[in-house]
Structure formats: C-alpha cells, structure tokens
C-alpha cells in the first residue's frame, strides 16, 4: 500500500479553474490515489502502535540470521505501516473513505499524542484548521497542504512506506519506487548541522540485533502525516530497526526537539515481509486489490516509474491555484 501523498484528486486538476468555493471544498475531500485503498465505514479500528506494543511483548526471543559480513540480515522487501498509512498520525475515528478509524502511530507517550509545547500545539492547531479537506473544525482558510503532495520525500515518512532493504559492507540501502536512503554504518561522522536536507543525514550502527540510525540535519519542512504534524530544523531522530521474527521488523523512531516538544516521543509499528501480512487484518479495497492477481506477469514484482516525481506537476498547479501556502517550516520561539 502506498502512502497517501496527494489529497487533491485528479478530478480537481481538470476542474480547478471552476471558481465555486463549494465545488473546491467538495473536490478537496481526499480521493484515493493510485493504489490507495477505500475503507468502508464499518471497518474495525485499524491497529497501529498500541496493538503492536502489546503484541510485541508476547513474542519469544529471536536471533536474526547474519549477512556474510556478520551483521543482522534485514534484507528483503518490507511493507509500510499499513492501514491508511500516514494520512493521520494520531488516533482517530472514521473520517472518510481513505481515512478509516485507526490507532495512533505514537507509542510513547501512552496517550498517543505528540507532546507539543504550548506554542507548537497552537501552531499545529492552526495548520489543522486550515487544511480545507472538508473535515470538522476547519476554519475555511487554506493554509498549507501536506508537503508530501509535491512528492518531496523525507525522513521519517520514507520509513513508513514499503521499501526493499539491501545490505552492503559498511552501508544499509533502502529502495522504494520513487526514492532511496543510503545509511553508512562505517562509523563516519555526520555532515555539519548547518547543512539541511529533506531526509536529514543518516548514520547507522549495529547494537545487538538492532540497526540504530541517527538522523540529524533535517530541514524541518516535511510533516509526519497529511494533517500538519510537524518537526523543525532542530529535530533529531533515532530509528531502531529490529527483526523480531522471520517476517517482521519492529520499527521504532524516537523524536527529540526541545524547541517544539515537551519530551522525546516515539512512533512504533511492525513492517511485514512482502506477502506475509496477517491474513485476518482488515483490508481496504483499491483498484489494485480488486483486480484478480496476474499470475504469469513477469513484471509483477518490478518497481515502475511513478508519477510522483517532477514536482507531481498537475497537483502542484492546482494546489497553488486553490491558494494554499508553501510550507517552509516553523520558527520556534527562542
């Protein structure tokens, strides 16, 4: 399943010149992107951090196989977070067909809320009210739309999506259909904190069975989800990737930023080896899943060029025309 990157449907693109406010509001209701699932209203609340933490506590100890270089073998194709992916980070009830009820991604604090400072919480609420998605509590103002709508990939959201992990001596490489990460594990120092990147600068090390990745130099311009959950240029992330059985990686990221959060907090969910997800998990239907599987297609497992490149041209134009601002990050008070 792909993460919901674009909340403006292709239909908007053709009709965006129509001036009616009502029409724009209706059309801005998220329409499923390619591969995006539709979820019926009666879908049980989708599991995320809370269910995973409980499940993880029951797992027997596991020692992962090693690569020829003697480090834990994380290689293979791994699913994303599942459910409606990172559409909405915190726990929520059913919102619309692409946003079913789902637990929070946040495993710590236990209430599943991002522990913003009062200043940051006010900023976050301002962004939320100005999303113009047709959701309750909106101001009608069009403030910002998710930077993910422009297909700008960033940490940690890349890790929420499916990817293939390839290991080479001194590096772990993560590959998706439209982006990549190369994480050196050779002990080299990070780039200067004066250099800022969408993905930040990743440095990995092995601690027992776990790949620990420190991410610094983040540019603070991306969101954790599509509803304005933000971080800043001061944010530091520490990811922990641990095989907990043959077909599951426990993914955990700790996010620290005293300028906008009252305490470090964590996101956690399992990543399943492609094709091995729990069979009884609730599933949405999409154009892709509704079709019978192509049994003899030699291209079935290939990653083909996505439209999520080149600034995703059409959605850029329409989002600009509708009047959203360009999100350039937050400036926390000193």
């Amino acid at each position, binding site marked *: 399943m792909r993460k919901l990157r674009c909340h403006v449907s292709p239909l908007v693109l053709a009709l965006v010149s129509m001036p009616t406010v009502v029409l724009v509001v209706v059309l801005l209701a998220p329409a499923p992107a390619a591969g995006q699932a539709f979820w019926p209203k009666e879908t049980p609340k989708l599991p995320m951090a809370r269910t995973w933490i409980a499940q993880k506590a029951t797992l027997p100890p596991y020692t992962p196989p090693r690569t020829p270089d003697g480090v834990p073998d994380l290689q293979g194709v791994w699913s994303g977070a599942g459910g409606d992916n990172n559409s909405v980070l915190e726990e929520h009830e059913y919102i619309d067909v692409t946003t079913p009820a789902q637990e929070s991604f946040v495993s710590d604090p236990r209430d599943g809320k991002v522990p913003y400072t009062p200043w940051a919480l006010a900023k976050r609420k301002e962004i939320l009210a100005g999303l113009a998605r047709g959701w309750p509590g909106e101001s009608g103002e069009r403030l910002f739309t998710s930077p993910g709508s422009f297909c*700008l990939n960033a940490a940690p959201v890349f890790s929420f999506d499916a990817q293939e992990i390839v290991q080479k001596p001194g590096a772990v490489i993560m590959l998706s259909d439209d982006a*990549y990460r190369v994480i050196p594990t050779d002990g080299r120092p990070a*780039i200067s904190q004066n250099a800022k990147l969408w993905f930040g600068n990743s440095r990995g090390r092995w601690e027992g069975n776990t790949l620990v990745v420190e991410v610094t130099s983040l540019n603070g311009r991306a969101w954790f989800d599509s509803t304005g959950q933000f971080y800043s240029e001061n944010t530091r992330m520490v990811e922990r990737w641990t095989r907990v059985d043959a077909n599951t990686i426990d993914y955990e990221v700790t996010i620290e930023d005293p300028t906008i959060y009252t305490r470090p907090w964590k996101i956690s969910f399992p990543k399943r080896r492609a094709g091995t997800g729990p069979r009884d998990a609730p599933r949405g239907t999409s154009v892709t899943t509704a079709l019978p599987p192509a049994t003899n297609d030699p291209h079935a497992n290939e*990653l083909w060029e996505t439209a999520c490149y080149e600034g995703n041209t059409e959605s850029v134009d329409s989002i600009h025309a509708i009047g959203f601002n360009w999100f350039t990050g937050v400036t926390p008070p000193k």
Partner: protein
Amino acid sequence: MRRWFVGFVFGLAAICTLTPTPGLGQTAATTPYTPPRTRDGHPDMQGIWQALSTAAWDLEDHQASLGVPAGHGVVDGGTIPYLPSALARKKENFDKRATLDPVTKCYLPGVPRITYMPHPFQIVQQADKVTILYEYASAVRYIYMNGVPHPRGPIEWWMGDSRGRWEGNTLVVDVVHFNDRTWFDRAGNFHSDALHVVERYTPTSPYHLLYDVTIEDPKVFARPWKMSMPLYRRQERNSELLEYQCHAYLLEQEWNNPASTFFEKR
C-alpha cells in the same frame, strides 16, 4: 509492442553493424583491466561515480557562455546526425533554452542525460537488478538483469524502461519507453518518444568507467549515433550522495511571488 520490436531490431542492427569504438576517451587502458567481481560473479562497479564532461550543457563542441564552461563534444564524429526536418526544432530549442529546457522545470532529465548531470550517482548491484541512485532529484532507476524483457508498450516514462545484461566486463543496458519531453542537454538536442538508448558501462580501472551510449530515434535522426565519456569514481573519504530536490527550490521561489508566471506557463 510493434514499436518496441522495431526499435529492438534497429538497435541490434546498430550494435552489430557499427564499428566498435576503439580506445575512446582518455581512460582507455593499454592493457585490458579486469575488474573485481561481486558475490554473484559479475564485474563489480558499485560505488559513487560522476561525469566531468560538459555534456549536460552541450553534447557537441562549444564555446563558453554565461554559466556554461567551454567543452569538447562527446559525440562520435562530432555532430549529431539530425534529419533535415528536425534541425529547425533543435535551433528553436537552442534559442529558447533558458525557458524550454525541461530541466529548468525540474522534470527528470531522462537517460542518458541524468548520467552526465553535474551530480554524483551510486551504483548498487544485486543478483536480479542493478540499481542506480542519482543525487539529482533523488531519482532511483532499476535496471532489471533477470532476462525479463521490456514490458509491452506504449509506455511513456521520463527515464524509460531499462533492461540490462553482462557482455564480458561491460554492463549493457537497453532503454525504451521514453516520453518526448526530455532533452539530451541544455543546448536543445532532443528526441521523440521513439527514442531507443543502449548504454555500455565498462570498468577501465578501479577508478574509471567508460560510458558509451548509442542513440537511435528514426523520427529525429538520420542514423544511430554514439556518445562516449569517462565516469570517475569519487575519491573523497566522506563521499556520499546528498540531495538536489530541484523542484523544492523552484516551488519555494515561485510560490509566493505574485509576479511569477511559472504556474501559468508549465
């Protein structure tokens, strides 16, 4: 399917009939270089590479202009063999290159241009595919090596569909299914959606790859033509791919500028 098949036959013909390029470039070794092997037994060309030519500005010999270094061309024979009917378009492209070059709009540069953009790229080899990670636009390109043929067209991709094979120490990549929206360089050298590219990556030392490309496009060129340049392994101890998210800069620059015509003109 038919177009691909025709292109494939033309491509084979081009490979078979054109004289093999002898000792191209400054890096051709006098004694053949034997590269190390991957665990799968293929030539190991993994690592971070970059072109140092001026091909991204102009594939042919050119003088300097503002922001553009002078340079020797990389085209075999010096001149791209346009069909007479295509030359006017090339000239118009050149005259309006500051605004018409698709790269100024941050579209993916296509193949082979992305190879000689002034940004590093990293080659990652696995048994079933060779993956190229480009710093430019964080683009990722999968070259399937498992013998599965190109998918049936018509398909129009910015980067085309890449299928590779090993010929001795050379990685040979056949690329079809392009759109007609990319250029080969800033000078307006262009192609149609009938473009067929064959790339050949040959290690000539631990620090050099020879990059030979055959271009075929019967709608635009009178005959297949070739370009060739060395690719250099980045030697910096802390060498790694960083980011050039081109459209992020462009969008930020244009978004809140009321005088911008960027969004109307795209």
